[in-house]
């Protein structure tokens, strides 16, 4: 019994030590920023057939999340730079509120993007569904190359899904790629990376990518 307890204590100590070291390194070193930069790769801002902005999150009252806004703004910027003739905005609704894609489309129109250049997709609920829906939407239009806009960590999972759907993908991270200096920002960035890593792992195990 005692041996079992001691062994359990040792395991807990090791896990505890690893957790504290990970926490301190995440908070007080630029590790999260470096990892994010590495995952973002260098964006290939070349003329393409379409700009695809993946969904983030919208509140039931219709307020876009910060990440959703970042992606939308990046997509609008790419369109205004003349990199593609079509802007595809994705995102469903939360709790019966307005859809993310429609709120984003309204924003894009406010920035002077013509309504006919904007396509919306509101039914996809996961990244995998987004790839399938975008394929169904763009394949009849002969779209081959896409500028795929999402955060750097998410690109690692989204890029192979869209490549499998038959697109030539140019990943464009929506993250502000500047080194966060505040420990809280670093922790938040690391949290996103861990979440995206787990999502990537799940997609790999499930055979989606």
């Amino acid at each position, binding site marked *: 019994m005692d041996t079992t*307890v001691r062994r*359990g*204590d040792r*395991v*807990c*100590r*090791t*896990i*505890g*030590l690893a*957790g*504290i070291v990970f926490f301190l390194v995440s*908070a*007080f070193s630029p590790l999260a920023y470096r990892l994010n930069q590495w995952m973002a790769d260098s964006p290939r801002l070349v003329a393409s057939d379409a700009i695809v902005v993946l969904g983030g*999150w919208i509140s039931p009252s219709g307020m876009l999340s910060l990440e959703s806004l970042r992606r939308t703004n990046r997509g609008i910027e790419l369109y205004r730079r003349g990199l593609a003739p079509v802007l595809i905005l994705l995102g469903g609704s939360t709790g019966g509120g307005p859809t993310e894609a429609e709120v984003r489309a309204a924003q894009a129109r406010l920035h002077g993007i013509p309504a006919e250049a904007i396509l919306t997709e509101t039914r996809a*609920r*996961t990244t995998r569904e987004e790839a399938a829906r975008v394929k169904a939407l763009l394949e009849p239009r002969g779209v081959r190359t896409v500028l795929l806009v999402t955060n750097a960590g998410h690109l690692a999972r989204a890029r192979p899904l869209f490549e499998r759907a038959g697109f030539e993908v140019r990943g464009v991270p929506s993250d502000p790629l500047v080194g966060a*200096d*505040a*420990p809280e920002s*670093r922790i938040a960035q690391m949290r996103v990376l861990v*979440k995206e890593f787990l*999502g990537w792992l*799940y997609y790999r195990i499930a055979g989606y990518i």
Partner: protein
Amino acid sequence: MEATFIAALAGLTSIGAYYVGARALGLPSARLGAAVGKMLESVGMVLIFLAVNLTTSVLVVLVVRGLADTFVSAYAVDDAVWLGLSLIQGLAFQSWRGSAAEPASGR
């Protein structure tokens, strides 16, 4: 700058706590290592609870998706409250383990 300030301040309060413990409360310095070990055990237990909670909630989401017609987002799992709840569970469980290892009191 902010990181340096926070690290320096935490260092200062840690040194202050050591002096309060060693001088004012008369705690034996030799037991500090063992106390840090106990702290690591508690942190480890909290992390185990966190891993179990998150894994279970992901499995529940996947099972609900498979069985029911409604879609449940896996992002429901991504909530900071899990850390707080795991902290409560881990510390309570670790205290329970600790109390079981202690000899029973006279009464």
